[in-house]
């Protein structure tokens, strides 16, 4: 598979939706809405559920299932109140020492007028700062597109994983080509240079693990893979957990 084919795979429709993926991962999912300040961003689904017998917080970006949802989520591009909802739910999880799982499939933060006027940059910056000291385990899984700071905002975990159908890059290969080659049609060439595939990023130490995207069964497979990791992180004394998380990002 070429790097650009990997990009297309990351963007391709799935036999599962974000909601059914979450349902496969945790039982009795209780969705929580809103950032308590501005509004509720449909591009971020957040809530609490059971990972077997362990309550966990799940925060996922979503592109939406129906056309109205796809429009409302801007194709999975969160706005500041979405990132603030994520931060609120992370703080909530921290209070109850509940592990957090983030599922990321976003081309990036939404480049919109209201998003900028409401502090898109500040919202992402707040998440990056908070994630560094969040006193509870945090595992991030890139399950589709992972684009730019908008993806990184939710990918500052103790471990960061990718599915076999995902990519992770500083921006889209189209954007990269248009900026560096001034030619958007050279996206395939850009994708090759960008080292955005799961294998490339595992080799570069940017992610810890690649999980096979097995289609409809992906949620259950992800749960099986996450269980021992969440257990191990949950058993790690907090000072050690935070030191390891800081060391993880310090090496870049």
């Amino acid at each position, binding site marked *: 598979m070429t790097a650009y084919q990997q990009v297309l795979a990351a963007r391709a429709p799935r036999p599962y939706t974000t909601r059914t993926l979450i349902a496969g991962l945790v039982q009795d999912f209780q969705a929580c809405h809103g950032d308590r300040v501005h509004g509720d961003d449909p591009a971020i689904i957040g809530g609490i559920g059971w990972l077997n017998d362990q309550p966990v917080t799940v925060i996922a970006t979503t592109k939406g299932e129906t056309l109205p949802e796809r429009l409302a989520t801007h194709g999975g591009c969160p706005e500041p109140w979405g990132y603030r909802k994520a931060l609120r739910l992370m703080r909530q999880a921290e209070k109850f020492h509940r592990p957090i799982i983030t599922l990321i499939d976003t081309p990036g933060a939404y*480049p919109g007028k209201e998003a900028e006027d409401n*502090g898109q940059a500040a919202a992402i910056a707040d998440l990056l700062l908070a*994630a*560094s000291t969040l006193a509870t385990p945090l595992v991030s899984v890139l399950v589709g597109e992972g684009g730019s700071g908008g993806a990184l905002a939710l990918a500052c975990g103790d471990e960061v994983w990718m599915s076999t159908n995902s990519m992770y890059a500083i*921006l*889209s290969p189209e954007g990269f080509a248009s900026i560096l080659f001034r030619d958007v049609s050279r996206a395939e060439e850009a994708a090759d240079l960008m080292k955005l595939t799961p294998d490339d990023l595992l080799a570069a130490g940017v992610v810890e693990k690649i999980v096979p995207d097995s289609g409809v069964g992906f949620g259950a497979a992800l749960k099986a893979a996450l269980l021992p990791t969440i257990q191990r992180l949950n058993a790690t004394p907090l000072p050690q957990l935070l030191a390891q998380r800081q060391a993880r990002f310090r090496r*870049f």
Partner: protein
Amino acid sequence: MLKASIPAPLDRAVLAKAAALPAGLWVTCPHCHESAYRRRFGAAKVCPNCGYGLRLTAHERIAQLTQSFSAWDQHLPEAASDFPGYAQKRQEAAQASGSDESVLCGQAHIGAHTVALGVMDSHYMMGSLGTVAGERLCRLFERATAAQLPVVVVATSGGARMQEGIHSLMQMAKVSQAVAAHSAAGLVYIVVLSDPTMGGVAASFAMQGDIILAEPHSRVGFAGRRVIEATIHAKLPADFQRAERVQAAGFIDAIVPREALPAKLAALLALHGGH
């Protein structure tokens, strides 16, 4: 979808106007487009008409802001990147800016205060955040934490360093960790946003200060104006992403004219037990 900020194209009329004037004698303000004798911009390089500060090199900024500066971490290993032409691009950037990276970090005196100071340089690859810049900033906060020093960062950047790919993105997280540790030690961090502060720099350490100042009319935001206009198929207002509008939205503590910055910083540092 485009995600990086792209420098706005200079208005054709402005370019034509500038070209018609004797070279070097007149300066056309990129913000209000009025022309004035270069010496009327003064040593601080501020437009006499609108107060916009022309972009400074890091060395110029340090000279304006500090009584003394001794650089830290000047010789870090170069970033690994096999992007074609990157080495040459860096060489040209060094010549254009007189700096060896997009940020200079060191210990400085601002008024009577000893601070850890980071100054970005938009003349060096648009102040983009590469691995070396990220490492310098990270060490700036680490040294400041160890030495119990306040940190002042003068930000200016187009965002991530595209040529370094994902490693540039990781710098946002890496520097944020160091900011958090400095903050947890009860030390103050003051940011000065200058024109422009965009993308991954705005979305990390530039918006993580305890106190966030900005120079008048500085462009501050995440996505680039043209990317947004192309996405929403609409024209944006003239003051979009300008510091005054961003302050009105609640994200900037104070807008400070360039000449007043040293005194403002000194006053804030004094309130935080600066020594």
